[in-house]
C-alpha cells in the first residue's frame, strides 16, 4: 500500500534519537562490608541490611525477613568464629533487583555441613545455627565451609 523509497541514513539517524521515557539507574553493584567483632555489630548489620532492602523495594514482611536472617548469620559468625564480615550487595538481572548477603569468617568451619542444614524446624531456634531457616526463606543459598579454614554463607533474595 505505501511505497517505500530508500531512506537516507542521515534522515533515519536524525529520528532515531527519541528521548528515553524514564531515567535509568546505573547498574553499579556497590558492596557494603560490615566488620563483625562484637554483639553490637549484629544490630548494625541488620539495620544496614534493612535500609538497603527498603531502598530496593522489598515489601514490609520481607524487610523483617532479611533483617532477621542477617541477624542469624551475624550471630553465627560471633558464636563460632568470634569475628568475620557481613557483605551486603545489590543484585540486578533482567530488570529485577535483589539483595545479596554474604557472611564470611575464618573460624573453625562447620565439619558436617549437610547435617547442619538438616536440622528440623522445631529445634533450629534453640540451637542457634538457623541455617535451614535461612535457606528456606531466601531465594538462593549456598554455603562453603572447610574445617580449620572458615565459612562463607551466601544468600540472595529478589524483590520482584
Amino acid at each position: 500500500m505505501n511505497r517505500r523509497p530508500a531512506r537516507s541514513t542521515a534522515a533515519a539517524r536524525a529520528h532515531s534519537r527519541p528521548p528515553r521515557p524514564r531515567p535509568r539507574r546505573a547498574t553499579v553493584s556497590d558492596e557494603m562490608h560490615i566488620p563483625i567483632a562484637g554483639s553490637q555489630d549484629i544490630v548494625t548489620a541488620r539495620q544496614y541490611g534493612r535500609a538497603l532492602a527498603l531502598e530496593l523495594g522489598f515489601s514490609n514482611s520481607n524487610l523483617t525477613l532479611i533483617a532477621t536472617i542477617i541477624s542469624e548469620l551475624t550471630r553465627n559468625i560471633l558464636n563460632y568464629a568470634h569475628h568475620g564480615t557481613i557483605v551486603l550487595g545489590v543484585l540486578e538481572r533482567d530488570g529485577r533487583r535483589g539483595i545479596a548477603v554474604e557472611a564470611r569468617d575464618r573460624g573453625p568451619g562447620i565439619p558436617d555441613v549437610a547435617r547442619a542444614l538438616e536440622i528440623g524446624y522445631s529445634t533450629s531456634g534453640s540451637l542457634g545455627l538457623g541455617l535451614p531457616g535461612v535457606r528456606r526463606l531466601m531465594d538462593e543459598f549456598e554455603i562453603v565451609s572447610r574445617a580449620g579454614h572458615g565459612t562463607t554463607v551466601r544468600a540472595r533474595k529478589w524483590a520482584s
Partner: protein
Amino acid sequence: MKVGRESANLTAVPLESTASLLSELVSHLRQLRTQLREEWARRITEAKLLTAMTKEEVFAEATTVYDNYVEVLETGTFEALQAYARNLSERIIPRGVQTDEVVGSVLLLRDVLARSLFARYRSDFDKLNRILDAYEPAANRIAITVAVGFVEERERKIRQQEEAIRELSTPVLQVRERLLILPIIGVIDPQRARQLTEQLLRGIRTNRARVVVIDITGVAAMDSTVANHLVLTVEASRLLGATVIVTGLSPEIAQTLVNIGVDLAKMNTVGDLQGGIEEAERLLGDRAHLGVKSDLPV
C-alpha cells in the same frame, strides 16, 4: 548539513535539513488539520473500530491524538504523547476497547497522513522521498508509543483486578467482638496463602481478636507447602495472642498435615464451622483462656 544550491551544476539538488523537512511536514499537517482529522475519523468508523465510543467521542479523541502527533513531529519529544496515551487508555479500557482497535486506529492515521503527502508532493518524487524519510521513523515511533502505552495500561489493570479478586475471595469477618472467621474457598496457591496470612494477622491486630476460626470446608486439597503455611499461620496468630480453630478439615488434608509432621491431636480442630464458632464462644467466655500458651510441638 549544507543548505543552498550549487550553481551551474544541473545534477546538484538542493538539500534541506531534516529539521526543515519536518517543519514543512508540520505546516502541511496543520494546514490540512480539519480534513485529515475528519478523514481519519471516517476511516475508523468504516473499519468498525472503536465501536464502544460514539462518533463525537471518536472525533474528540482523534483531534487530541492528531494534535499530539503534530507536536511530536515538531518537538521530537514524546512525553506529552505518552502521558496522553496512558490517560486515554485509562478511560477507554473500562469501556471494553481492545488492543487491536487502538493499534488499528493509530495505523490508519499513519496511512491518512502518508496519503496526504503523496497527494501533495506527487509531482516531485525526490521531494516526496525526502519528506517520507523524515516522516516514517517518527510515525512508527508514535504508533509504537500509543500501542505500548495502551498495552501497559491494560496489564496494569489486569494485575489490579487480580489483586482485588484475591482480596475479595478471602474476607476476614468479624462476627462478634474478639472473634474472627476466615472462610476459605477454592484453590489455595502459595501466593494466595501468603496473602491470607497477611490479611489474617492484620485482622487480628485491628479487631483485637482472641479467637480465629479458619474454615477450610471449601478447600478440596492442599499440597504440603500450603499445609505447612497453614500451620505457620496458626503459630503466628498465637504470637499475636489469638487462638486458632481450624474447621472443615477433610480427610485428605488431615492426612497431608500428618505427613508433614503435625500432631493433629495438638491442633485445635473442629468438624464444621458451626461447631468451631461454638468452641470459640466457649473459649471467649472462659477467662482462663485469655492469652495463649502454645502446646503445638512444631
